[in-house]
């Protein structure tokens, strides 16, 4: 009996040893990372953030807007208070090659968008009808040529007070995009909405 107990103890020690090793090896891998306003799940390739419905009367060209070029805000259905720089970093954290393709080649990734409504997650097409959706119009990702100037929000001084970038920006960003022509199925007005986007 004593011999048997000793043997079990030995096995238990070995199991504990390997479990400890496993825990230690997992310690450095953090699948979830939280920036100030965007949560990133690297394992599931998902980002989560909050936004509000932008019910201004102007035409909408993008579904989601993150804080960046202020004049685009009016053209987006949902606006998040998270900075665009944070979104860019979040995607780079998930998959830098995908981010590189989106940013430099205007590549449109496959995305599964879910919106939390009355404690239940809905796919975006269950929340709204979209007629003219070109996947490039899902999120405004930024512009390499202008981001350096625009996204440096730390500047106390407007660096571009004297130059006329706006018409150029507008033609580059909106260009030939069609208005989204959307219709809400659920009532999201006046609520802070939680959104989850999974990149495939």
């Amino acid at each position: 009996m004593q011999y048997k107990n000793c043997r079990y103890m030995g096995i238990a020690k070995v199991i504990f040893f390997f479990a400890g090793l496993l825990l230690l090896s997992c310690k450095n891998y953090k699948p979830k990372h939280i920036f100030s306003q965007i949560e990133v799940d690297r394992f599931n390739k998902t980002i989560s953030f909050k936004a509000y419905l932008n019910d201004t009367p102007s035409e909408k060209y993008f579904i989601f807007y993150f804080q960046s070029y202020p004049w685009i805000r009016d053209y987006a259905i949902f606006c998040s208070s998270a900075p665009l720089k944070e979104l860019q970093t979040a995607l780079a954290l998930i998959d830098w090659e995908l981010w590189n393709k989106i940013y430099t080649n205007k590549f449109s990734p496959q995305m599964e968008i879910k919106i939390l409504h009355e404690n239940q997650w809905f796919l975006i097409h269950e929340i709204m009808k979209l007629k003219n959706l070109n996947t490039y119009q899902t999120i405004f990702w930024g512009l390499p040529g202008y981001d350096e100037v625009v996204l440096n929000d730390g500047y106390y001084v407007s660096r571009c007070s004297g130059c006329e970038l706006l018409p150029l920006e507008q033609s580059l960003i909106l260009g030939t995009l069609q208005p989204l022509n959307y219709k809400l199925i659920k009532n999201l007005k006046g609520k802070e909405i939680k959104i989850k986007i999974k990149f495939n």
Partner: protein
Amino acid sequence: MKLNIFFIFTLTVFCLNLLSQTNLKEAMFWQPLDGKNIQCVLCPRECILKPNHTGYCTVRINLNGKLYTMTYNHPVSIAVDPIEKKPVFHMLPGTKSFSLATPGCNLRCIHCQNWEISQRPIGEIKTYNISPYEIVKMALETGSKSISYTYTEPVIFYEYMLDIAKEARKHNLKNVMVTSGYINIPPLDELIKYIDVFRVDLKGFTEDFYRKLAAGKLQPVLEVLKYLKQKGAFIEVVNLVIPTMNDNPQDIKKMCVWIKENLGDETPLFFSRFYPMYKLTNLPPTPVETLQKAYQIAKEVGLKYVYIGNVPGHPYESTYCPKCKKVLIKRVGYNVLENNITKGRCKVCNTKIAGIWE
């Protein structure tokens, strides 16, 4: 007689008042020439200035036979940036750096990413009036661990930078100069005493590149780099790789060999991605493959700390231990996700890592 004294007194008060209003400060490093002409000897251009004329930088002026700086106390941009944005990777990772610039530049890079403040006439740009003491106070209030002289070329606001750097030292703040290295040796010599990290742009490795794209010369920059190394300054080098302009593998190899031989194999070297900018919008962004190739060349030459810049999330944004190859500092964009350096050494194999870590 009394009237004369009164007149001189009034004129002096008026001139002093005018000087304080326009915030002109007598510049350092210049010499008088014939008549009221003078020569600025701050940078390798060594401009000869006629009365009431500015130098090539547009911010140093000959007034009545004396050289004045027009940017002293006049920052145009102030921001609290992550130190990774400079980029400086081997000094206090994950900390904030109080960053500032005044208008003007002594180069004319056609791909300048800060052209709105570096290449436009000073009169067109709105500036603030902030003394060196106030800058240091602001840096401390924002929890910054360093002050970076950046965005434009800090050489052109030399006196302002020097006074801030001296004040910063009194408060244990580090000083980072983000520069093209286009400066003469005597002014640099004075600066070395106060600057902790020189983040130098080595824009290309041919005279042709410097002449065509930056309206400058390569040789003075190389002299500056060698001098900094000789004086024991800590240097990080950035090479912005521009497609078809300076992406020739032979030139990149020559540059890496030069860095290894003259600055040492522990000098951090960044290959940064170019995005179309300012007057160089006809070229595409640098392909990641080109940057990776440059990285491989530098590693084969034997440089220990090589990075790829402006490609957020790329594995070569991180610092690896040159001995055990483990990740020392994991970065994504300007974010530090992991830091495995303790007391300047690799946590795993205890190898000493070049840099300023505490």
